[in-house]
């Protein structure tokens, strides 16, 4: 069985007695070390799926297994990076990076050393004693990445991590994250609604569509790091995704004619 095994996973809410399906019949297998992008418009259930795998809001249909074990709660072995960073504003940058280590590493000096190592990796060691409010959005997200890496997780979940950043900062961080992945060999599940971002980053792209949230198709990206955003192959993969996402619109057009 694959590393992450998702079988018929679904999630339904009931609001005022009306049942609402946010995610239906997701089947997905993810191997160790893969970079997976969950891509789709808002409401397609990509964040719901991510939260279900991460253990924050469990799926109530089907099963999600990581390493053969059913997901029942967030695990310290898998870290989530949020769009709004989730840094603790009352802690300095270095203390934020140490946060995840406090439950794991009892020795203070070892903790500091580990935190500094990862802060250097995201090139923020000069800002160790700054507070989050003194940093730009991109820097804050790099702190969050360092904090996630510091606990040496197996899986990193990223929920639209660059969604709040400007386009240029976003591209830089995409390169950074690819760099880090190459060195650290983590399994990454990355939620985004940005098609280029998905093509640029992912080994496989899970394209999702809303009402109800389902997997429309899975596209393997046959490109190697680093990718050229303007190359023909890059555009080809992008077109495939457009196809997948546009299918539904074409059907409705046929009806209107």
């Amino acid at each position, binding site marked *: 069985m694959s590393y992450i095994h998702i079988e018929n996973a679904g999630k339904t809410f009931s609001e005022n007695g009306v049942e609402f399906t946010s995610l239906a019949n997701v089947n997905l297998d993810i191997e160790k070390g893969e970079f997976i992008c969950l891509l789709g418009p808002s409401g397609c259930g990509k964040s719901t799926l991510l939260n279900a795998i991460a253990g*924050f809001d469990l799926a109530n249909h089907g099963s999600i297994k990581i390493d053969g074990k059913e997901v029942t709660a967030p695990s310290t072995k898998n*870290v*989530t990076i949020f769009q709004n960073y989730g840094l*603790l504003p009352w*802690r300095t940058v270095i203390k934020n990076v140490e946060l*995840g280590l*406090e*439950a*794991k590493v009892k020795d203070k000096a070892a903790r500091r050393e580990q935190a500094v190592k990862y802060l250097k990796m995201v090139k923020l060691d000069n800002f160790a004693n700054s507070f989050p*409010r003194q940093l730009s959005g991109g820097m804050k997200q790099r702190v969050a990445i360092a904090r996630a890496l510091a606990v040496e997780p197996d899986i990193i979940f990223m929920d639209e991590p660059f969604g709040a950043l400007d386009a240029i900062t976003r591209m830089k961080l995409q390169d950074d994250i690819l760099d880090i992945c190459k060195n650290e060999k983590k399994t990454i599940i990355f939620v985004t609604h940005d098609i280029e971002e998905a093509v640029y980053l992912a080994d496989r792209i899970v394209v999702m569509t809303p009402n109800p949230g389902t997997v429309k198709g899975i596209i393997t990206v046959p490109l190697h790091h680093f990718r050229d955003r303007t190359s023909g192959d890059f555009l080809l993969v992008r077109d495939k995704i457009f196809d997948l996402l546009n299918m539904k619109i074409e059907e409705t057009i046929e009806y209107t004619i």
Partner: protein
Amino acid sequence: MKKLASIRYVIVSILILIAIWQLAFTVSTYSPALFPSPFMALQALVEMIQDGTLIASIGASMYRFVIGYGLSVIIAVFLGLILGSLPKVFNYVNPTLQLLRPISPTAWMPFVVLLFGIGNLPAIVIIFISAFFPVLLSTVSAVNKIDDIYFRVSDNFGIKQPALMWKVILPAAFPQIANAIHLALGSAWIFLVAGEMVGAQSGLGYQIIDARNNIRADILLATIFVIGFIGLLLDFLIGLLEKRILRAWGGEN
């Protein structure tokens, strides 16, 4: 420059107050023994400082204030953090709190005096009550307003109680708690005087009653201004402390 300007505002503002007082004194037809001039009040103040009664009164009042207010804030914040984290328990406690909260602390005064007699305790109890409810309820609401993302992050990194309380909940809720502690200081100081007027034989509140009994309006007014001045000073000090903690915790400059 900014500091100098603000000192100028303070001096001018107080001078205007004294001028109005002086004017009222000049035109009033009351006996100077009942309505003294600012200068007479100043003389009374000097007299109280010289014979040591002022220091003794301030000492007695501060002792009660520090114990009553300090205990109240510590217990209210502690309970507030716990009740805020246990919304189901709070649902059972809240109606009682809402029942007790609108009761003026002075309403408890006769009961407290009956129970404990005259002395330090009635004033301490009044101060305690006056600060307790606002700080408790603000702490609970501050805990409830904490952004869910902090709990997700803590959950993810395996931070559990009791570490969660002082690593995440207290600092996240602190700005709002500090605000409540600051406001409660003012009302606690107000009720200290009320408490000492009824339930004590010493302190600034008692000194006012004592001055009335001796028909020493000059001492009475001087004491009132001392109370105002100390209130201002306490407010300034707690503001300083609040700012320092907020800064240490990465809040605004």
